Each structure stands twice: as structure tokens, then as C-alpha cells.
């Protein structure tokens, strides 16, 4: 991963990473550290880290189908009241070209049938104030916003 350093005090920054699980984890911890340095209140860090993790995992596992490579750019814009994040990749589009629904999987029924996945998008919808997706020029743009005050 090549961290793109921005001048001290800047509230916008970007990170570039390759689509692997370990780079996603490093990008996540680097981003959270950078946001903390820029003054993100610590009580908001947990939700933001979780949403970022779910979104990055989705790109690694589905857009790039766990191929072990593929460029991802993460853009963060921290304002006084809000944090906006955009994740850009050139992998496969989301199914149907739209955001997946925010329905949590059904947990009824025998333990054997309990879902082991399908929670990621629900958590993203639940923990953000807005989520948007667009596909342009074979590129995915997933952006979400958080209120941080």
C-alpha cells in the first residue's frame, strides 16, 4: 500500500491499497489513526471503523472476487459535523448495479441453518446517515456519510 500523505492539518486525505485482506486491515487502521489525529471524536470511531471494514471487505471479496489484487482508493473528508468517505474501485459492479437491501438475515429456525454472512450491508445502512453507489466508466463509487458531532 502507498499512503498518500497530505499536508499536516488537512482534513481531506486519501489512501491507496491493493485488494487483499491484509492491506484492507492496514488501510483501516491507518485511516482510523489519521482521523483521530484530525480530531474525530473517539466515540464515533467504532461505527466508522466497522462500516469501512464492511465496505472494503466487500470490494476485496466481491468486486475483485478475492483475486489478491486490484486498486482501491479511499477518500476521506472530515468536516466539523460530518465525515464523508468514498471508496473507488474498478472491480465488478454491485449485483444489478444497485445497493443491496438493508434487511438483516432471519435468525429463526434451527441452529444449523443460522446465517454466517449477509450482515455487512445491513451494518453499513444501519450505521451511516447516507449511502450512495454509482457505476461510471467501469468504476464503482461507494460513498457514505456519518454525523460526527
Amino acid at each position, binding site marked *: 500500500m502507498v499512503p498518500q500523505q497530505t499536508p499536516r492539518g488537512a482534513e481531506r486525505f486519501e489512501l491507496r491499497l491493493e485488494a487483499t485482506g491484509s492491506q484492507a486491515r492496514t488501510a483501516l487502521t491507518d485511516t482510523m489513526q489519521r482521523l483521530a489525529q484530525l480530531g474525530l471524536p473517539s466515540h464515533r470511531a*467504532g461505527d466508522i471503523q*466497522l462500516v469501512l*471494514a464492511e465496505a472494503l471487505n466487500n470490494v476485496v471479496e466481491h468486486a475483485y472476487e478475492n483475486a489478491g489484487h486490484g486498486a482501491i482508493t479511499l477518500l476521506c473528508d472530515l468536516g466539523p459535523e460530518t465525515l464523508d468517505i468514498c471508496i473507488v474501485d474498478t472491480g465488478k459492479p454491485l449485483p444489478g448495479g444497485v445497493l443491496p437491501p438493508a434487511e438483516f438475515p432471519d435468525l429463526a429456525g434451527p441452529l444449523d441453518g443460522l446465517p*454466517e454472512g449477509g*450482515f*455487512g450491508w445491513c451494518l453499513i445502512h444501519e450505521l451511516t446517515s447516507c449511502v450512495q453507489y454509482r457505476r461510471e466508466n467501469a468504476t464503482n463509487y461507494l460513498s457514505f456519510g456519518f454525523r460526527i458531532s
Partner: protein
Amino acid sequence: MTLTTTETDGARIITVNADRIDAAMAIQFKEDMREKTDPGPERVILDLSSVTFIDSSGLGAIVAAMKQLGDGRRLDLAGLTPMVEKVFRLTRMDTVFTLFSSLDDAVPGLDSGSSGGSYL
């Protein structure tokens, strides 16, 4: 990641010695859990007190670890930190697992330092 096993009366405690259970380690976690629980007693308690972050892949790995215990056995969770507890609550998985705020709550008498139980 490392898992540490402690035997108590009627339960095996498995402590996660890592601060996160995420997508990068979910498969390894599931395999390590199988190694630590098969075979084993009916009740297994997963001590999550060191874990400050879990994502949906980590959650899925814990669900898988419970399912692979098989019939008649159970996986209880202890020592959930606030963000981990929040993920279980938002996904309603707190209705599937029994959650204890600490290991002491999960295994009364544990702090006596004796694995053979304490007599007062």
C-alpha cells in the same frame, strides 16, 4: 491469532488473545476453534475480553464455530467490549448466543483460582 484454553468444572474457556476478529483472520479463527473444541465438553465459553473490533466476517466465524460444535453442545460468549456487543445486538445475534459481561459471570467461582471448584 492465538487461542488459550482453560478447563473448569463443566466448561472449557477459550480466550482470544487478539484485539480483532476480522475478515483477514476469520477462516483461521474457525479452524483454530475446531482444533480447540473437538473433542471437548458440552459447554464452551469464548472469552472475548481482549477483542475491541469485530466485523461481519468475524461474527460469521463465531457463528460457524458454534455450529461446528454440533448437537447438544453450546458456545457462550463472555467479556464483550462495547463495539463487539454492538455488532451482536445490531445483527440480533445476541438472541442466539448467551452473552455474559465477564468470565466471572459466565463461570461463578472462577476467580477462586481453583479449577476444582471452591467450598466455602
